[in-house]
């Protein structure tokens, strides 16, 4: 039998009840088939052992992975302050879960640990990996390198970074009964299934280009020979006062830095998460020295158009008739930039995928992971990338 995806949500006041409600709602789509994997995304309020206990009680022995978010996504729209439970049943498809710990101290090693744990379970016919790394102060591209070292760079990797409802304090990851932080859970999809991925943002460059004159890993020290923070002081007009009141990520979130990547129509975006030493910017992923970067600005129309294109890219790889389920990983910056219009973006995605009957689940996070061309294209090395301000759409199809 083919893949069946079930999605349930709840925002009940009681954490345990919410878990049970969402799980039972998700299970009702499976028509009594047991789930092979359970994926949970929740607002920070639900990061409580009682949530996982109730969900696992309902879903049985299946592996559970997931993370906290900044909002859930289903075909019905965006959900603030709730739990989203996704269950997958399938006969000829494998879902192999793993967990890597310690992403802040050694992101690459944590990524490798995740990849190794999955590799040790001997996946066959691997099609894609979905991962949900801690999105706070960790280097997303380093995690990705670690995963690629373990599983090979030809495997498409997609996913979203855990969030914490826009507080930028502490995010959590879920693995079976465990609530962890500073970790990266993920699962591999293998077997008789086709995977499509689309990733877009719709942000546009603004102002003059600057050169990265000094950078180490994900920390930019200097732009055009000046402390990197100057670019935000000059363009946003924010000073030390603003930065004391709110985290830089909060202020700069919708204005990332962008650099162009060969063969790509869109710039690759990097959020400045924290203000580092000597006016440096700690970014969500690597920025190479010598790179020319520009400040990026988001706009309603281009953002919604990007979402539609991402959905179309993902569905093209699979074919609408074969679509069994969709994951959506959306940047919280899009939610912020679009404001009350952010529901509209979910509508655009759903409609591009085929309308109201679409099975769809995901979350708003602090970063996105996706390969930079549609999966159906040629397999080149190093095609997986870490993104910001983007929407990643992953489709699963079966004939």
């Amino acid at each position, binding site marked *: 039998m083919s893949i069946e995806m079930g999605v349930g949500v709840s925002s009940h006041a*009681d954490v345990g009840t919410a878990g049970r409600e969402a799980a039972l709602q998700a299970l009702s789509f499976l028509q009594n088939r047991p789930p092979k994997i359970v994926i949970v995304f929740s607002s920070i309020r639900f990061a409580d052992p009682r949530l996982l206990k109730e969900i696992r009680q309902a879903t049985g022995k299946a592996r559970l992975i997931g993370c906290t978010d900044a909002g859930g996504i289903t075909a019905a729209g965006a959900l603030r302050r709730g739990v989203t439970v996704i269950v997958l049943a399938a006969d000829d498809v494998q879902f192999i879960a793993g967990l890597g710990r310690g992403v802040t101290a050694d992101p690459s090693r944590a990524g490798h640990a995740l990849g190794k744990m999955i590799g040790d379970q001997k996946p066959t016919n691997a099609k894609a990996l979905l991962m949900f790394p801690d999105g706070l102060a960790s280097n997303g591209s380093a995690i990705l390198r670690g995963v690629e070292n373990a599983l090979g760079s030809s495997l498409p990797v997609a996913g979203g970074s855990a969030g914490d409802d826009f507080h930028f304090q502490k995010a959590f990851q879920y693995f079976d009964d465990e609530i962890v932080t500073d970790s990266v859970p993920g699962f591999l999809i293998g077997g008789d299934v086709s995977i499509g991925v689309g990733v877009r943002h719709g942000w546009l460059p603004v102002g003059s280009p600057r050169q990265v004159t000094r950078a180490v890993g994900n920390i930019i020290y200097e732009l055009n020979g000046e402390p990197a923070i100057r670019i935000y002081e000059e363009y946003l007009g924010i000073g030390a006062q603003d930065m004391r009141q709110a985290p830089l990520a909060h202020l700069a979130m919708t204005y990332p830095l962008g650099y162009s990547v060969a063969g790509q129509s869109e*710039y690759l975006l990097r959020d400045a998460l924290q203000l580092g030493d000597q006016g440096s910017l700690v970014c969500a992923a690597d920025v190479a020295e010598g790179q020319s970067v520009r*400040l990026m600005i988001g706009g309603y129309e281009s953002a919604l158009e990007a979402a539609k294109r991402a959905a179309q890219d993902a569905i093209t790889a699979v074919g609408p008739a074969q679509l069994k389920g969709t994951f959506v990983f959306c940047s919280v910056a899009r939610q912020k930039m679009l404001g009350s219009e952010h529901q509209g973006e979910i509508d655009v995605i759903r409609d591009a995928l085929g309308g109201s009957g679409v099975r769809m689940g995901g979350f708003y996070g602090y970063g996105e992971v996706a390969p930079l061309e549609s999966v159906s294209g040629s397999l080149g090395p190093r095609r997986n990338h870490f993104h910001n301000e983007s929407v990643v759409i992953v489709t699963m199809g079966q004939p």
Partner: protein
Amino acid sequence: MKKGKIPKTPPADKTPELQKAYEELDRNARTLVRTDFQLHRANERFDQQISHLHALHRIGASINSTFDLEVILSAISDSMATDLDFEKSGIVFLEKTGQKPFQSAYTGFSAGEYRRLLDRFDELLLPALQQEDVYLQTAGFAPPAWAGFLTDLSVASLLLLPMRIKSRLIGFIVGARTHVTLRLSESERRFYAMYAAQSSTSIENARLYEALGQANLTLEEKVQERTKNLVEANERLRDLDQVKSNFISLVSHELRTPLTAIKGFIVTLFHYDKEIPDEKRHIYLSVLNEETDRLTRLITELLDISRIESGRIDIQWQNVAMPDVVQRVFDTLTMKAGSVNLVKNFPKDFPAMVADPDKLEQVFMNLVGNSLKYTPAGKSITVSGARHEDGIIVEIKDEGPGIIFGELEKVFDKFYRLENETNRKNPGTGLGLPICRALINLHGGKIWVESETGQGCRFLFTLPLNLDKKVVASMARPLNGFATEKLGLT
């Protein structure tokens, strides 16, 4: 969108105009970004305010749809979780003094954590509630006492919102974030103050409604009680009317008997004066004399009993030595007693008491006088006293024929007279014992009779010591349904 290499600086061959335009464009870009930035911040504030208003609206809609305090409390506690993200929340309603938790609901806290929270009410919570309208403590910034408290509750932030009605603290809302260290903007503080005010109003409304309901219920109960009282009073009035009619017919009968005798003798004397021998005339006149005396006694006693029963009698409260009263009665009756021994038997420590000596004398005159009628010559009548419970007990014992069991209680009925030789020879008024009972009752005591046929009679009465005199008057009991108390329409 341009692709490929972007030069670090404009090419040297660019004309100065191009260079200028390039710089202008960058300046424009800054203006554009700043405007966009400010717009987004404003938008974010709007969104936050809308979400706050939404939370207020939701809480308003859910708690204003009921007046059930418990439902309101748990709706507020739940709203703290679902609308405002608090992992642990509670609402506590204080008792009237505002010093002690009274009723509460909570969400997310374990029972142990919630108990530990309330345990620190006096020490930490109450001072905080009196201090600020929105009180926030967060781990890392809290003073030692609070830091320990936060750790104890496993939370990173604790928010306290006092609920006030006209500046009186009626309760508080507590919200705790497990992982998040909260920082509140001015607008968030305003929102939380409004949230607490909204909650206070709903709670107050519910309480007023409950109080109103209670008042309605009380009112209804009062109306029912009054109605019942009225019905009872009406019934009592009807009974009284019946009793009065009975009494009048009884009294008429009692008055008629001596009057008939008197009339008979007077008519005889009037018509046959000349024919009646002196000897007989003397007998007639002495019968007339006795019947007139009896009539007078009857009327006096009727007046007495009517005064007692209508509450018009004055009791002259004085310190009384009971043995002295008995002695005076014995002295008065010595002649009448003849060879019957009058014995007084009071212990030395018999207490003095507060009573009306004249009324007591009247009681003893009646009781001893009564006993004299039945006690054969050479026998004794003994009056003895003793301490009894809260007061005293007095016994008047004779060695007469006694009273059969079935008649014992009837002797206190008005106009009841035992059917015997003595009474036929020397009819009384039938009011002596009822008067005794009324007087003893007026003193807060009880009177009864014990007897066995052939064993003599023992009249006993008790009197309390240290009696509240006002109470006594209201305790005056009606005699055989002849009510003295006022109707209970208060």
